């Protein structure tokens, strides 16, 4: 703390000045004053000799506003790149701070912005195909995705997020009508073949990428129908199976050789596949439910979630008709199980979880829908013992849970003393899934950890055997469909590099998932109806709980177009006329008008009245697209006040000059010109 010791100490009273009174002290002080000014007089002046020299102006300098581009003149860039370069593209945008939050927060970086742009432009099929590049099953994910994109959507800040997921679904519905015309096999240019074990979302994503790159891709699926967990695990009320099959059909149409009903390890062996193909990708997912090691779990009436869902989905019968069901777990699977149980005729469904209501790991909208349908949630309860009678479940003893996570945020539940007995007939454990790969890896040198997990590099997706790769939940653990798809894409890149003889890591980018600002639900009072989010029509809760019909009914074309137009096209640097600059401006200096019609959307007017602007920077700060920005200009002299109103054309000129005097013969070219009266 040397600095502090050097610091002058505040006197008890400042009244005793630095010098005393009296003639001598006074004369001395005056002499010191002369010395001080003399020293100043001979020292170098501080002046910056404008205009010859100029101060460097801060990069944040809030100069006058300009636009980088406007809708109708400039296109929104679509995030399209070959899969092996896609991450670099995203990374470049991320570094330049130009990554839209929806794209950045999506594990697979699906270009939701481009989708909205194309749908609003009435190019729905193109939008579908754009999405499919990164999200192999848009129609499926459009129904079941947990849409992190919508949570990050910048529109959250302004009012309500864009309905990205329903737009996927809408795009698929439109695409469906023309899908047969749009599908033709990718040419096989590489002459090498890849085998993919498992037809879940991650396997399909890898298959799509590899097919696109020109490889021969052979896929094996144990079940009779493809789709992996999407096929077996997701309840039909959320995902009609024909959607899934249709989309997989498309991929088959692109050249995928799909073999269903073939179980690797039984019907064919992995070593033989490894011999047969140049590379093998294991995308087998998690196949068995975890069950807690507590007393009574071997009794009749205790089932795992996967088994339960499988039978509910395929048989529409899980042996719970008229029985009381207790679902253990608070995740999305648990909610799925609970809702399925209602649909297969359970008389009462309870959901017990460790976490409190606000901490439940499932998505809030899921639990809300489940509660609507009559599921009873019991929070902060930990399973202690399954009560049995004659080896049959009669109830469950639960212990109250005080806290689930410790201070560091790790899972370390603390239990209280109270216990409750919940009478029930069936207990479904939905507390997670585990891999089951011992039969698959038999006969290979693949390393398997003690807990039965395959040893996989988390970023390159290589296993201990060259040429064998893995992706999907087998790598990441239980997760979302879109997360699995993301790993599939990455694994495909690895395989491609492996087959091309390139170093696997090389310059591949492992980008941190950006954290975006969370926003509380905005106050929507007083805002215009066309700014509101399209409401997804839902089936009536009373009705829908009875069968496996879809709950969400989908958007109409009109709704979808309007919704796509709400998209702010974040970070595109093209003004979309969202009017939030005009709405935020404390001086009301900006006037924006635009035409909002599919196919004919453009800004008709963008006026900036520089006479009113207070250079506060709120508009540019809030501009979602960063089209509106401050120029570093600061010389803003005008001979006339009229020169100070800039229209769209003037604002688009690059600020090459430093002066905005208008057309006075002095200004450099590119400076704003006098405003032309409209008409």
């Amino acid at each position, binding site marked *: 703390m040397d600095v502090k010791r050097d610091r002058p100490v505040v006197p008890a009273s400042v009244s005793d000045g630095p010098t005393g009174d009296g003639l001598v002290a006074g004369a001395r002080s005056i002499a010191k004053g002369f010395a001080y000014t003399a020293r100043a007089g001979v020292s170098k*002046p*501080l*002046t*910056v*000799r*404008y*205009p010859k020299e*100029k*101060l460097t*102006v801060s990069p944040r300098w809030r100069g*006058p506003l300009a636009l980088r581009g406007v809708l109708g003149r400039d296109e929104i860039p679509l995030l399209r790149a070959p899969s092996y370069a896609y991450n670099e593209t995203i990374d470049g945008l991320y570094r330049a701070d130009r990554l839209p939050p929806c794209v950045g927060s999506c594990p697979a970086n699906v270009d939701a912005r481009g989708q909205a742009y194309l749908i609003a432009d009435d190019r729905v099929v193109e939008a579908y195909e754009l999405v499919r590049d990164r999200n192999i099953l848009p129609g499926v994910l459009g129904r079941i995705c947990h849409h992190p994109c919508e949570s990050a959507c910048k529109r959250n800040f302004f009012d309500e997020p864009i309905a990205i997921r329903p737009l996927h679904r809408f795009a698929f519905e439109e695409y469906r009508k023309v899908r047969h015309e749009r599908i033709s096999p990718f040419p096989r240019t590489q002459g090498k073949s890849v085998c993919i074990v498992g037809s879940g979302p991650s396997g399909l994503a890898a298959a799509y990428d590899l097919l696109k790159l020109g490889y021969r891709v052979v896929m094996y699926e144990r079940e009779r129908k493809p789709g992996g967990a999407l096929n077996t695990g997701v309840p039909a009320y959320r995902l009609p199976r024909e959607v899934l099959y249709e989309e997989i059909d498309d991929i088959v149409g692109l050249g995928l050789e799909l073999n269903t009903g073939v179980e690797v390890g039984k019907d064919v062996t992995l070593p033989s596949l490894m011999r047969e193909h140049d590379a093998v990708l294991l995308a087998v997912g998690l196949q068995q439910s975890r069950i807690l090691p507590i007393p009574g779990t071997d009794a009749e009436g205790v089932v795992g979630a996967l088994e339960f869902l499988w039978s509910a989905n395929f048989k529409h019968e899980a042996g719970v008709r008229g029985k009381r069901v207790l679902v253990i777990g608070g995740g999305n699977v648990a909610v799925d199980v609970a809702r399925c149980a209602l649909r297969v005729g359970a008389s009462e469904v309870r959901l017990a979880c460790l976490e409190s209501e606000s901490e439940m790991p499932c998505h809030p909208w899921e639990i809300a829908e489940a509660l609507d349908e009559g599921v009873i949630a019991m929070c902060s309860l930990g399973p202690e013992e399954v009560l049995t009678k004659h080896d049959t479940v009669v109830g469950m003893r639960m212990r109250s849970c005080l806290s689930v996570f410790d201070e560091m945020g790790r899972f370390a539940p603390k239990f209280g003393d109270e216990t409750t007995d919940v009478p029930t007939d069936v207990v479904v454990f939905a507390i997670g899934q585990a891999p089951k790969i011992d039969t698959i890896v038999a006969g290979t040198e693949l390393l398997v950890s003690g807990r039965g997990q395959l040893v996989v590099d988390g970023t390159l997706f290589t296993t201990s055997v060259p040429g064998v790769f893995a992706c999907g939940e087998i790598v990441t653990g239980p997760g979302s469909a879109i997360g699995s798809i993301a790993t599939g894409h990455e694994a495909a890149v690895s395989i491609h590099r492996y087959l091309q003889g390139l170093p696997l890591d090389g310059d591949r980018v492992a980008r941190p998932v950006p954290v975006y600002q969370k926003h509380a639900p905005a106050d929507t009072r007083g805002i215009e109806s066309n700014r509101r989010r399209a409401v997804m029509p839902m089936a009536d809760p009373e009705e829908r709980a009875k069968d496996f019909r879809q709950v969400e009914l989908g958007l109409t074309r009109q709704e979808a177009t309007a919704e796509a137009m709400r998209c702010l096209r974040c970070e595109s640097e093209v003004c979309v006329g969202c009017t939030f600059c005009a709405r935020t401006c*404390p*001086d*009301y200096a900006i006037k924006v008008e635009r035409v909002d019609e599919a196919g004919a959307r453009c800004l008709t007017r963008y006026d900036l*009245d*520089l*006479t*009113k*602007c*207070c*250079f*506060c920077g709120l508009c540019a700060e809030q501009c979602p697209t960063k089209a509106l920005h401050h120029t570093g200009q*600061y*010389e*803003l*002299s*005008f*001979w*006339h*006040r*009229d020169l*100070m109103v800039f229209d769209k054309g003037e604002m688009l000129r690059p600020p090459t000059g430093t*002066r*905005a*005097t*208008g*057309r*006075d*013969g*002095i200004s450099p070219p590119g400076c704003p*010109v*006098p*405003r*032309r*009266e409209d008409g």
Partner: protein
Amino acid sequence: MAAIDELAEFLERTPGGGILLTTVDAVMNWARGKSLWTFPMGTACCAMEFIAASFSRFDFDRHGTIPRPDPRHCDVMVVAGTVTRKMMPAVKRIYDQMPEPKWVVAMGNCAVSGGIFYYDTYSVVRGVDEFLPVDVYIAGCPPRPEALQDAILQLRKKIATESISKRRTRPLVSDLALPTDPRKGDLLSAADADEEDEAPATRSVSA
């Protein structure tokens, strides 16, 4: 009547005085442009930047521009800040106290149009050009000191187009056609202005 007006009248009456008048104009405009003493009509925030402009870092004096607190000694009134209805008579009066020729620079958006105080307020005059003839407007809230210096340089260019003779019209060096009423906005369009290059627009110079 200032001596300069008598001189101008005399030169106009004298045969061949026109050429002399042009020379005198050139000399006078040069002198006036290089010696713009300002009256700091500082009312609000912009006054701070005005002070900064005349202090060490930016040094107005380098351009021959010194702030004088007495309107009688000044050539340019820099209205720096918001002018309210209560303040307006004082500003007008100080302007009237300045000797001709005099110019007005509206510094900052409050002086230009009321700026941030344009809407919803009951006491602010929306721009000093409601009651003063403004020669140069500086946008900014507040403008940087450099912007003020630039405005003085711009004012010099404007002064260079003037004449000491009240009757005389001079071609503008610039192709900027000036509207008669700045509020009306009857500006020539950019394309028209380009055509005007051959036959420069003229305007009569008035105080």
